[in-house]
């Protein structure tokens, strides 16, 4: 009798053990441009997510789940981002998304995530509207700064440090570029500078019209709110026209392709503001940078470390929500806001709309080699909290 009970008990224990190892699959997704002109940064973020899952995935697998990574390619296009988002919300195993690179893609895509309460943690989207919308306020969070701080920081730098009076303000007609340019423009005007607003479609590579006019009107500084895949060629053509003015941009210029496409020899008088603190100024990221370099055979640049920390936020949120069985997406999204830890990019926690309570803003002076980029100044600014829209 006893033996039989013992046998049953063993069988039951085995069955439970097997069940514990088979609570189902949990997927963490990412959406960044993995192809097209901006893929270098998109792949860097995706690599960061991969690294985080390797480093900390055991927080989820030790609870008995199988953890998978689902990278999606939004091609830096809003329509592709929304199409992917619709696929994601139909895969019930996806419990969190790291994304995007472009605010103009993140904003419409997060509307889709919000329909099912799927949490998005953004490593790089600086447009205020990413976290300022009522419709997505429960799902969209970010671990970078905001353009309503970044734009004015750039204006302060240009007007006060570079002493510019006449500024060309070029934007790439995306949500990111237009938002950043508007925030910049308002502060620059308030500081007494005159600005000329100029829009150039993000796909345009012929800047003759704008540059010829700049050669005639001689602005003191050219400010560019857009991404390096256009900013690099713009800078190169500007210098080829003999225009030596300072060229200043936002975090969209933070990538080694700025040097590659703009020409290393053209990096004199090139500055950008960013919310991605360079790894050289992040002592906590040293071992990450080394492992990343070894694993992917490239330098971790731009927002790579932020992709890593974004994924760690989601891993922690899932692991805290998954203790009593596979959590709902809403539970994960709520858990994201409770996450609090020391990331490699700085302390991470969220206010009630998903912004970091304080974020760092950096003014970088670009050098011929991306890895030599010099940090001019790092400021820490509390997140503005305008009314939700």
């Amino acid at each position: 009798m006893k033996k039989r009970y013992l046998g049953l008990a063993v069988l039951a224990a085995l069955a439970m053990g097997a069940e514990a190892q088979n609570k189902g699959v949990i997927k963490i997704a990412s959406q960044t441009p993995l192809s097209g002109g901006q893929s270098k940064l998109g792949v860097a973020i995706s690599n960061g997510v991969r690294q985080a899952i390797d480093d900390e995935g055991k927080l989820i697998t030790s609870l008995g789940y199988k953890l998978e990574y689902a990278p999606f390619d939004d091609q830096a296009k809003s329509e592709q981002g929304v199409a992917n988002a619709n696929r994601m919300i139909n895969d019930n195993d996806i419990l969190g998304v790291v994304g995007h690179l472009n605010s103009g893609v993140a904003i419409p895509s997060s509307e889709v995530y919000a329909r099912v309460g799927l949490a998005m943690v953004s490593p790089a989207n600086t447009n205020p509207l990413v976290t300022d919308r009522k419709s997505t306020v429960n799902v969209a969070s970010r671990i970078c700064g905001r353009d309503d701080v970044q734009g004015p920081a750039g204006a302060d730098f240009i007007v006060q440090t570079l002493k510019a009076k006449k500024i060309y303000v070029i934007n790439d007609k995306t949500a990111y570029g237009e938002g950043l340019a508007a925030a910049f423009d308002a502060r620059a005007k308030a500081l007494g500078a005159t600005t000329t607003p100029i829009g150039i479609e993000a796909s345009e590579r012929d800047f003759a019209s704008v540059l010829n006019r700049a050669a005639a009107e001689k602005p003191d500084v050219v400010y560019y709110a857009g991404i390096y895949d256009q900013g690099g060629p713009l800078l190169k053509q500007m210098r080829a026209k003999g225009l030596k003015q300072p060229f200043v941009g936002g975090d969209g210029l933070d990538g080694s392709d700025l040097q590659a496409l703009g020409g290393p020899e053209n990096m004199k008088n090139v500055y950008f503001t960013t919310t991605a603190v360079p790894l050289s100024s992040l002592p906590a990221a040293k071992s990450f940078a080394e492992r990343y370099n070894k694993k992917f055979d490239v330098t971790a640049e731009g927002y790579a470390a932020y992709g890593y920390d974004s994924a760690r936020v989601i891993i922690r949120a899932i692991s805290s929500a998954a203790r009593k069985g596979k959590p709902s997406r809403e539970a994960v999204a709520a858990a994201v806001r409770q996450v609090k830890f020391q990331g490699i990019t700085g302390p991470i926690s969220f206010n009630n709309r998903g912004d970091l309570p304080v974020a760092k803003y950096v003014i970088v002076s670009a050098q011929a080699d991306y890895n030599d980029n010099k940090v001019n100044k790092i400021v820490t600014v509390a997140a503005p909290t305008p009314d939700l829209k």
Partner: protein
Amino acid sequence: MSAELFFGLLPITVVDGLSIGLMYAMIALGYTMVYGVLEFINFAHSEIFMVGAVVGVELLVNLLVPTGLHPLFQLVIAIVVAAAVAGALAVAIERVAYRPLRVRNAPKLVPLISAIGMSLLLIDVMRLILNPANPNRPFPTAGSYDFFSQQLDLGFVAINFKTITVFVVVMLMLAGLVYLVNYTNLGRAIRAVAQDQSTSSLMGINVSNIIVLTFFIGGALGGVAGVLYALKYGVASPVMGFIPGLKAFTAAVLGGIGSIPGAVVGGLILGLLETLAGTYLPLMTQDQIGTEYKDIVAFGLLIAILIFKPAGLLGKAVAEKV
């Protein structure tokens, strides 16, 4: 806006407009020549252009720059190789994607679809070859390539050496093409095939060979345009072909598709229109309507032109289609 600014900008705007227009013209020739003999639009042509650009840039960066030759000489070698590769690619595409359809007498829309398929395939294959994580290939600039950054100052206008290079190369290519088509037996054969394939074959012309030749010439011109485009705009990438291709196709239609002079005229007009619009729209509207609306103005005018000349500017005037 001051009159001084208005007229001060005019010369350089015209120069820049003509230089982009010449590049559109080079690409448009590929569309128009194929249309001339086969009456279908080879939508893979914009990707042949892209392949030419990438081949040229890769060749320069990896093989030619280390030789230390004069950059102009390097550029000539890159152009010749890119033209050969792009031409061969165009021929290969004809062989694989169009000829099997043609010999089975497929309707004209069918090769159009296989052309679009080819175009997508080429983009993705190139992305795979170039490594999706790093698709942008910059044109060399450092060292002796400062040569191209010089300006030629004519007093009323300063022209960049890149622009001059584009002008010279395109003019030489156009002169060669005009000579080939109008003054050689091969050219006569091409014109004959364009007029009537079955009669030409009765006259002893190998129609298939002429079609292959047409694809080669069109593709080679596209490849040259690719290298020049990379020179002028500083970068080659797998997705670079779409917009210039679309503009060049428009230029070909504007000039009268099937007409060689038409493609050149159409390219120049389109290039001029969009550059003028890009410069003067913001100036004339106090920056209320920005330079980003240049395509709307340019394409609006195109629609107007096509309403009055539906066959394109030179579409009817020239009896021969090539």
